[in-house]
Each structure stands twice: as structure tokens, then as C-alpha cells.
């Protein structure tokens, strides 16, 4: 963050950490409030929370305060240390994702030049947390939920990464700022005004990325690990109070992070025609708003699918990933590569 006044390194670090610690919970709160409560309600022709605060806006505040008052229970035979550590690991992976997402020319926690590689690596830490929770709860349902989650997340990491490779080939740069710049400067057959958001050329990649995100977040139609009707909330079954709040936060934080990633890679990130790439006050202010709007659009699609589709069975889910998604993403890479070489 290149701010005007020179700060010692640790002061910058403190500000960045503080910024992320503030942004992630508020972003999750906004996502949960608008999509999980309000949008789901209106999709089911009802109103959603109305009493808490004007038009139900303080509902999440009440939930948070209540979960703080809850008693922290743990099953007798649970492995206590792993049991308490699991939610933290899941939450950690969500927070780390936000390090690389650029919200403006100057606003990015750390503009790593291996940005997208780092994001995908970090997102697979949550699989560890899920497994730890599943095993430590000493509960049959949790164990089955944990194993299913591990199987599913690993199966869908591959198409996630391969979908991103197409974008990286076209942008020629691994860092997210670079990708945003590539989309801003590219043009479609000479017409350069709106730049070249990769969703136009990488449509297949965008679809694959969305489907893989749906599976990463264990949402229907891929929510076998937390399938209510069979496994009774899967690996979260034994968690109560604050620990459950961490899982809740982790799940929807990851939803926000992944939709932000999708917005950055496919819809042009924080850039909109008229913002100059080098930075300046206007870009640094308008950029985050643009990114937020695009992220909400992508999140809308994710939650829309979540409330409509039934859930795939375990083996159908795996065969769908290995037989359809991965070959498709390989084809996508081939085509992008060929185009890259020709043009």
C-alpha cells in the first residue's frame, strides 16, 4: 500500500492486517444478510428477518451477540486440541485469500507476482480444517461428513486450477494486478473501449470456475458433506457457540473471496472504462466499489443455484468432476494456448 506518509514496515503491516480483519467479517455479514436471509426469503416469496433493526438489518448483530453468550460444548471423547483448532484453520484459509485480491490500483494488501497461485494454494488449507473437525468430533456423522468433504474438495481443486490456467495464459501474468491490467488494455478486434474482460473469451473457463467454486463451498448441488437430510450438518454437527460461528464465518467468507476472485479474473476486477491504471485518488476510491458490485453479481449467481438445485449423490458428483469438468478444462487450455500462439 503506497501511502503518502512513510511508515515503518511493521506499521504498514499492522494497518494491512487490521484492514483485512475488519473487511472480511463485514463483507461476510453483508453477504449473509443480503443473500442467505433476504434473497432466499424473497425467492421463497416471504420476507426474511424484519423485526431486528429497521427491515431486519441488525439480524446478524443479534446472531453474533447471541453466539457469544452460548456455552462452548465439546463431546466427551473428542480430541480437545484438534477440536478447537479445526475452526481456526478453516477461518485462516479465508482470511489469507484476501491478501492478494486488488481493490484498486494502489489498494492491495500484498501485490505478489504469484498472486493467483498463492490464492489457490491457500484455499485448499480449508480441506485440512474440515478433516480435523470431522475426525475430532468423535461422531459417526461428523466422520462421514469429513471424509466426503475431503474427497469432494480434492476432486474439485483440479478443475478450479485448470480453469484459472486459461486466464493466466491469456493474461500472460500470474499477479492479479497484471490480470486486471491485461483485461483493461486488451481489445476485441480493435474496439478497445471496454477492454477485454476475459469472460468474453474464456466463457468456458468462467463456467468451470463457477461450478468448481460451488463445489469448494460445499453448496448444493454439491453439498454432500453438510447434507442436512442425511448427515445432519456433516462435520459441524458437534460445534456450538463461537466455534460454530467460526465455521459459519469461514463458509460465507470463502463465498465472498471466491466470487471476488472470479470477478477479478473474468469481469475485469476493479477496472472500469475511464479509470486510469496507474493510480490516483479517483481510481483508489471508485475501484473498491466497482469490485464490490461485480462480486455481488457473481455471488448472486452462486446463491441462486444454491437455493434451486437438489444435491448430487457422492459417486455422481465425483464422476461429474472427473469425466466432464477436467477434460473440458483441458480443452479450454488447449484452445487458449492455440489462440495465444496464432495471434
Amino acid at each position, binding site marked *: 500500500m503506497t501511502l503518502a506518509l512513510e511508515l515503518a514496515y511493521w506499521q504498514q503491516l499492522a494497518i494491512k492486517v487490521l484492514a483485512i480483519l475488519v473487511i472480511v467479517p463485514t463483507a461476510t455479514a453483508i453477504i449473509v444478510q443480503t443473500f442467505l436471509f433476504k434473497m432466499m*426469503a424473497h425467492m421463497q*416469496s416471504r420476507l426474511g428477518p424484519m*423485526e431486528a433493526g429497521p427491515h431486519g438489518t441488525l439480524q446478524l448483530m443479534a446472531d453474533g*451477540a*447471541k453466539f457469544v*453468550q*452460548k456455552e462452548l*460444548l465439546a463431546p466427551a471423547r473428542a480430541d480437545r486440541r484438534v477440536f478447537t483448532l479445526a475452526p481456526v484453520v478453516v477461518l485462516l484459509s479465508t482470511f489469507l485469500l484476501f491478501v492478494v485480491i486488488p481493490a484498486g490500483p494502489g489498494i492491495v494488501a500484498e501485490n505478489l507476482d504469484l498472486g493467483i497461485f498463492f490464492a489457490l494454494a491457500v484455499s485448499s488449507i480449508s480441506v485440512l480444517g474440515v478433516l480435523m473437525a470431522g475426525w475430532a468430533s468423535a461422531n459417526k456423522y461428523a466422520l462421514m461428513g469429513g471424509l466426503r468433504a475431503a474427497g469432494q474438495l480434492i476432486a474439485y481443486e483440479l478443475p478450479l486450477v485448470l480453469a484459472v490456467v486459461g486466464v493466466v495464459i491469456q493474461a500472460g501474468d500470474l499477479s492479479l494486478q497484471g490480470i486486471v491490467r491485461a483485461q483493461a488494455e486488451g481489445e476485441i478486434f480493435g474496439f478497445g473501449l471496454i477492454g477485454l474482460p476475459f469472460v468474453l473469451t474464456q466463457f468456458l473457463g468462467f463456467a468451470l470456475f463457477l461450478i468448481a467454486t460451488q463445489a469448494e463451498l460445499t453448496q448444493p448441488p454439491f453439498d454432500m458433506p453438510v447434507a442436512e437430510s442425511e448427515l445432519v450438518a456433516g462435520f459441524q454437527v458437534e460445534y456450538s457457540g463461537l466455534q460454530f460461528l467460526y465455521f459459519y464465518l469461514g463458509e460465507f467468507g470463502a463465498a465472498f473471496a471466491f466470487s471476488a476472485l472470479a470477478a477479478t479474473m473474468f469481469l475485469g476486477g476493479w477496472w472500469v472504462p475511464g479509470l486510469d491504471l496507474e493510480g490516483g485518488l479517483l481510481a483508489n476510491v471508485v475501484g473498491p466499489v466497482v469490485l464490490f458490485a461485480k462480486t455481488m453479481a457473481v455471488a448472486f449467481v452462486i446463491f441462486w443455484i444454491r437455493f434451486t438445485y437438489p444435491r448430487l449423490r457422492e459417486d455422481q458428483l465425483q464422476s461429474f468432476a472427473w469425466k466432464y469438468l477436467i477434460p473440458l478444462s483441458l480443452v479450454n487450455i488447449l484452445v487458449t494456448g492455440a489462440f495465444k500462439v496464432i495471434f
Partner: protein
Amino acid sequence: MGLIERGKLPKPLSHLLGLSRSYSLWVYQWGLACCAIEMGACFGSPRYDVMRLGVIPFPVSPRQADLVVVSGTVTDKLAPALRRLYEQMPEPKYVISMGSCANSGGPYWDSYSVTKGVDQIIPVDVYVPGCPPRPEALLEGIVMLQQRIRDEDMAERWKGDPIVVG
């Protein structure tokens, strides 16, 4: 234990905490008999939509729930399961007994296998009469419970003296 110790809290803080507890009652899906369908109508039907009041029917495991609506006939064979479920719920927990079967055995008052009233097994906060009570009656019971939670004194609840029933 939760954050609240046994000591007395300053009035506004305990009122604020009471407000937050009353507006976010996570209710546990525990349907038994016909009252369960009226409870489902109250929770699930867009016409009544209990989520407006902040009562969220999401949690499926007792660990995350703090309200259980006993809706239907509790038989002697089910009583131990109901008791164990009540114990699994984390502490600030509330119970609504819905319908005559849960209140006092209702139409099966003389049956050999029905428990006459759920308050013999778990302490009950609000009794909703009816057989089955309309969804609005359950909503009225929930609104009454939320009122009681708001002006409830947490310290007295933590003292652990058994809640006098009825």
C-alpha cells in the same frame, strides 16, 4: 460457560444481551405429530414466515440450537431421547410446549404409552394451547417467549436453581 459469569451485570448490558438473545432464537427442527406440520407451516410457509421474528429454523443439530418447540405426542419410548436432546443443547436454552399432547397428553390422556405432559421431562417456558394450535398461535407463543427473554435476568438463570414449572 458462556461469557456471562454468575455475577450481576450492569442493567443496560444485560438488557442488550437479552435483546440479542431474543432476536436470534435458532430453533431446532424436532417435529413429532400433527403439531409438527403446523410448526412446519409456521416456520416454512411464506404466509407466516417465523424468520421475520428472528427465529431461524436452520440448525439441524441440537448443538447450534437454543429453542426447541416440542410439537406433538411424547410417548414413553421417546422420553429418554427427548431428555438427551435437551441436555445436548448449549445453556441459554428455551422450550415451547405446543399443542395439547405436549401440554398434558391431550386426546391420548388415557393411553398406556403416552407421557402425560412434556413438563414431566424438561422444563417448559411457554405452553401454546390448541389441537393443533394455528400457526399464528405458535407465533403468539414465540412473541410471548421473546418478551420474557428480554426482561429475563441472566444472573438468576445461571444460579442453577431449577426453574419452577407451572
